[in-house]
């Protein structure tokens, strides 16, 4: 597919849930090729919602989203890898092996009415080695630790050779060693494979060490720019204070 810049273009985006809650308001973001963006904000700030809007899973109430230059988001989803929040097996008995789980990530590439071919199998093998989970390939996914599960789901997202990777709180519930390994892998995927990454996170201290840009939201947008211009000591309190003020304001209209 042709080069498009920016690869994600969000203009005046607002999302109101059916229950009337305003989840996002006036978001304006351009994501450029090879960006590694930290999406940060407190719980309930709308981070997951924003990622889902980019995937077309949630429709904007107003404003527009373009993915690879088009508003028809579904057209280009096969170039996007997604790891949802707390990605793991629904229950420990889910009858899927690690190998089969990663293979699911090849589904959009195999084409309708076609089974998985030699190329798909080769890609899965490559991922198993890249993420250091080859020994686990026959393990049931419900029997993995948090860190292992996270690597499997990242492998599933990367096996489709995405140009854009959306990771929703990928390090929640994972121990510190696994976390730093995980961020190393993300950095390598971005630098070596040129994959654009948006990663939502709470680990502000760690994540701002690897990203080149920061997007800071709490329903509305507080900061969007170069990592070098971002100062957590100024932006974060601003974001939280504003949230508190809004809550007070809501209490006494």
């Amino acid at each position: 597919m042709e080069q498009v810049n920016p690869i994600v273009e969000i203009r005046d985006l607002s999302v109101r849930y059916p229950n009337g809650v305003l989840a996002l308001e006036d978001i304006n973001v351009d994501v450029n090729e090879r960006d590694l963006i930290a999406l940060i904000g407190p719980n309930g700030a709308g981070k997951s919602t924003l990622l889902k809007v980019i995937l077309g899973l949630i429709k904007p109430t107003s404003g527009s989203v373009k993915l690879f230059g088009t508003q028809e988001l579904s057209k280009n989803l096969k170039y996007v890898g997604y790891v949802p929040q707390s990605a793991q097996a629904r229950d420990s008995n889910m009858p899927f092996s690690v190998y089969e789980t990663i293979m699911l990530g090849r589904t959009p590439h195999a084409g309708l009415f076609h089974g998985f071919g030699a190329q798909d199998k080769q890609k899965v093998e490559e991922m198993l080695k890249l993420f250091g989970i080859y020994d686990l390939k026959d393990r049931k996914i419900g029997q993995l630790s948090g860190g292992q599960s996270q690597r499997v789901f990242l492998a599933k997202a990367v096996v489709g050779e995405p140009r854009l990777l959306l990771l929703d709180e990928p390090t929640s519930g994972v121990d510190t060693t696994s976390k730093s390994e995980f961020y190393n892998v993300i950095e390598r995927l971005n630098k070596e494979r040129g994959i654009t990454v948006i990663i939502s996170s709470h680990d502000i201290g760690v994540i701002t060490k690897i990203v080149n840009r920061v997007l800071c939201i709490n329903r509305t947008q507080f900061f969007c720019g170069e990592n070098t211009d971002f100062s957590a000591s100024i932006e974060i309190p601003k974001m939280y204070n504003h949230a508190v003020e809004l809550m007070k304001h809501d209490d006494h209209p």
Partner: protein
Amino acid sequence: MMITLDLLSLLQAGFIQRAFMISIIIAVLSSVLSIFIVLKKMSLIGDGLAHTAFGGLALGYYLNINALWTAAVTVILSSLGITKAMRSTKVAGDAAIAVFMQLGLAGGIVLISVSRGFGINLESLLFGSVLLVNFDQIIAALITSAITLGIIFLFFKEMVYVIFDETQARAAGIKTWFFDYLISVLAGIVVIVAIPIMGVLLISALLVLPALTSIQLSKSFRQTVILSPIIGLITVISGMFMSIIIDAAPGGTIVLAGLAILGTVFLLKRIQSFFEKSRKTSVN
């Protein structure tokens, strides 16, 4: 000795052979589909659809037209209706199934009551009978099964992705709404094909038990897909034998056979994990 001879002569009877033939078709078909139904957490849909099938059959008897056709139309429409209601955020999924179930059963029993005298055997309708199967039904079952399994084969990897995780499947560009409807309609087809043997009240067990048992034993989806039809076949064939030997409705004996297999598997797994634990403690 007497029992064996009786059984052998019975097995040569045409109606018993027909019952076995259709049972084997139903076993393979339902056990493959059961994997998708169980993993999609819609185990109750078979029950809902079977009850609407009862209403559909009753409507056919009342109007004095081919009851399997009215049942087929009713079940397919209900499967679409249930899916639409389940997908809506306004109605809870299990409540949607309950409403269709009640409508089917209540409508059916009223229609059957007013059309009494047409010689309807309510018991075999509800619990199945080995006497009801004719050759045309076997052919119809064979054709519908081939089509149903063909559809599953064509959309296999998309259907697998949808039951693995609906949100991730949507994020991968799969039109999950289509597969929600498809799986429901296929469940409806299985219900219609299985009515003569299983009866409307027990049909749903075949859409749940083979997958539930095979999931306990499988380490991968591939193993589940291989094991489920094997368990389905063992269930149905042993249930049919039991039905003939003790002269009971096959719907009941088949479900009891399936439950016995599930129970045995649970028990063996318990024993296995007990021995594994005690081995670990003795090593330590």
